């Protein structure tokens, strides 16, 4: 599904990503973890073309997307959420979801033909369905700026569902949430987002990772230091050292 081959990204002297080679298969749910500054968000940003890699190759379904523009990558079926939310605050909740469907095939500028109008109805129904899945149907006509953080995070999930992408990056989907809200988010990801697509979750809350991910990749200082089953990865000395320091790893 997604293959990164020797991907590198530097910011001046800082090696944000060093020789990252990793593959994500179809319908996998993978946790991408690591301490702050380890390169998790940089990896997502490089794949989704927020900025290009300095070296290496990125393949999606066998197609080289290394030098694609962000909107083209999005149209290929790769979607993402953001650690710092990027919603259209002055649009309604339903407007945000409809904007997310923009690049989908059949969603044309002007609906002159009967087929276009039928497609538009289907897109609208899909947007309504996505809001129901995340429990925001009752606030569909409110401005996004009026919603509290947990609902805004759910709105980002609704945008994903309405687009039905093949590959999803969730960047700290439970960021700023209480434990109860995080549990709800974990359930939502497991029940609605993860099925039938590749889902890569960046998160510091390990209980959420353990709940939804069958595989975990660990980054530290821009390098991939572990990749495998969560129960095995969480006890690796290199992983413990990355999070807690050398003394804890050998304790």
């Amino acid at each position, binding site marked *: 599904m997604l293959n990164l081959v020797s991907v590198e990204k530097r910011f001046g002297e800082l090696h944000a990503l060093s020789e990252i080679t990793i593959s994500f298969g179809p319908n996998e749910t993978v946790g991408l973890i690591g301490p702050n500054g380890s390169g998790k968000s940089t990896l997502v940003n490089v794949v989704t073309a927020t900025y290009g890699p300095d070296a290496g190759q990125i393949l999606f379904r066998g197609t080289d997307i290394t030098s694609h523009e962000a909107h083209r990558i999005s*149209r290929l079926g790769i*979607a993402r959420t953001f650690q710092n939310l990027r919603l259209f605050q*002055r649009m309604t909740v339903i407007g945000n979801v409809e*904007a997310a469907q*923009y*690049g989908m095939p059949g969603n044309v*500028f002007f*609906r002159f033909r009967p087929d276009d109008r039928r497609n538009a109805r289907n897109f609208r129904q899909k947007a309504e369905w996505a809001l129901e899945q995340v429990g925001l149907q009752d606030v569909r006509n409110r401005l996004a700026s009026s919603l509290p953080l947990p609902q805004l995070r759910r709105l980002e999930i609704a945008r994903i569902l309405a687009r039905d992408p093949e590959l999803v990056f969730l960047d700290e989907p439970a960021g700023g949430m209480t434990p109860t809200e995080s549990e709800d988010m974990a359930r939502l990801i497991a029940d609605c987002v993860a099925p039938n697509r590749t889902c890569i979750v960046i998160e510091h809350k390990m209980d959420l990772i353990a709940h939804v991910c069958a595989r975990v990749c660990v980054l530290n200082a821009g390098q991939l230091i572990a990749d495998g089953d969560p129960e095995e990865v969480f006890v690796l000395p290199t992983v413990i050292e990355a999070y807690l320091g050398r003394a804890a790893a050998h304790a």
Partner: protein
Amino acid sequence: MIDFIQTTLDGLSIGSAYALIALGFTLVFGVMRRINLSYGPSIMLGAFAGTWAFVTLEAQPWLVAVVTIAGTVAVGMYVERLCFWAIRKDAAIASMVSSFVIWMQLEEVATILLPGRTYPYPELFKFGGIDIGPYFLRMEHVTTLAVAMFMLVVLRLLLYRTRFGLALRAVSESSEAAVYMGISPVRITFWAFVFASFIGGVAGYLLLAADQQVTPYFGLWATFKGLIAMMLGGLGSIPGAIVGGLLLGVIEAHTQWYLGNAVKDLTAYLVLFLVLVLRPGGLLGQGIVERHAQAFRRI
């Protein structure tokens, strides 16, 4: 009282043309957060193409209208490629300065195309106007008002009833977020420019058909009127552009009637100054000033 109402009606009709020019500015500013200073000169060059067709080819008024609008759109596309597409998004000042440079270039092109200072422009209607009770409405003014209102409805439908409008609003709010929805800001910006130029071409035609003449100074005049109307109504606000344009037209008409032509522009500047002092974001555009202030506070 009859004079007052008649003057207000005259002001509204010229103001509706100002509103169209301000709408063009607002559309581009809303999407790009950049000011296109050569918007007025683009309309002027389009009008010069129209009057060239009129003078040299003896074109019919409808063909002059088509040439004017098409010419404005073509020049608008040229300006977009040169001053906005080619310059990085965060270099707003560079875009504005280069649009000023292009302004000079467009005036030169107009002078080369038609070396004289003033050229005739065909009138819209041969008959004068209509009487409604004690009031007299010139047909050009009625047409300007009607076309302006029609364009507003079209713009409203475009923005809120089409996928293009949705994408345009998304880019206007956050082009960084819009790209991850599959929206190409470059493409949307280009079409916003085309549409703004179309509106400008229509406004230019209506104004010049009423005046029946065009000079190279029309570009300067249109840029000033459009910018003042936009700032009166509120930066980046579409309803603000309409209110600003109509208000500017009415203020000018009343000043001209009661105080004379000499102080017409001065009064418009004075009102703009007062509005900006009392309400810095313009009458309906407070939001954008507050958002920028918040952004600076965050920095």
